[in-house]
């Protein structure tokens, strides 16, 4: 590496000491690609959030990824019925690690007012959720707040978290197969 040239540092571009975790976290958190899994009413509020008045692109999120393979963040907005549950789980399994889940609205978080025979009582019964946004439907400000909380999580996440035994146990609890179990 060689000796740091003081002159170059002071008069030049400068440098900052940080850890790899933090640098990657910073980069990741400002370029999250969301996959909107919008089913019902909350989906319309999500559209309003993407629209010109609230403008999600301020958070580096204007690029919606409709393919689960390239998405980092699964935004589940709306009621998930028991018929739709397996499909949601499949979409989650198709996403590559690291991945986060934002549950928007009361229905996705807990079933909401629909405590009925056909509605899944919260998506956390089939996939792990990172941030819950309350509201029926939440206002766009609330959705943005949820997204910013996701950003905080992304920013401070350790690079080793996804390989930790706790994370693997969590996945086992949800009966989700890890793709690369050999990595220590």
């Amino acid at each position, binding site marked *: 590496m060689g000796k740091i040239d003081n002159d170059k540092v002071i008069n030049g571009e400068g440098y900052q000491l940080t850890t790899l975790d933090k640098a990657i976290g910073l980069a990741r958190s400002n370029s999250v690609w969301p996959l909107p899994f919008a089913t019902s009413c909350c989906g319309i509020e999500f559209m309003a959030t993407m629209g010109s008045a609230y403008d999600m692109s301020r958070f580096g999120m204007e690029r919606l990824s409709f393919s689960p393979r390239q998405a980092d963040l699964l935004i589940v907005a709306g009621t998930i019925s028991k018929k739709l549950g397996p499909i949601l789980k499949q979409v989650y399994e198709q996403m590559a690690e690291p991945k986060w889940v934002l549950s928007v609205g009361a229905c996705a978080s807990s*079933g909401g007012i629909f*405590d*009925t*025979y*056909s*509605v899944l009582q919260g998506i956390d019964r089939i996939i792990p959720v990172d941030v819950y946004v309350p509201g029926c439907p939440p206002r766009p400000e609330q959705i943005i707040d949820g997204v910013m909380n996701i950003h905080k999580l992304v920013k401070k996440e350790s690079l080793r978290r996804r390989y930790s035994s706790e994370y693997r146990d969590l996945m086992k609890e949800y009966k989700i197969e890890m793709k690369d179990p050999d990595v220590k």
Partner: protein
Amino acid sequence: MLNNEALLTQLEGLFSSNILSAEINFDLLTVEVPTSKIHDIIAQLQKDENLSFGFLTLIGAVHYPDSTDREFAVVYHLDSWKNKVRLRLKVFLPLSNPSVDSITDLFPCANWMERESYDFFGVIFNNHPDLRRILNEDSMDYFPLRKEYALEDGTREDKDDRFFGRV
């Protein structure tokens, strides 16, 4: 324009013996007809040039668990744009044999409404081209809108029935 009284007179002229009962219920004429005749009656109402009930508004079923041999009602709402009048037709079916003729050959839009009634109540529509469940999963083994089945999901542990007035 045709008012309900005039409509009833015309209907009585057309199918006198087949009208089991008739009443005017909040600006809508309700007529009960025999289950076996419903297909023919609707076909005739559709074809009749004076009445011309050419638009099927709604098909739905109702469950009356307490009335013996009349457990299910299938309710048809027809609309005559020519006369600006609506008509409600009702047939009653027994629990032992809840089946009625399908009217999908007269109105293609009846297809899903009949499937929905089958899905919710288990009403069988004879000659229906594709009588399967529509809204619920195929694996469901009961008919959820029948009165004896519970609304709730039943898997939630955070809800204490005592606080919701259900003991």
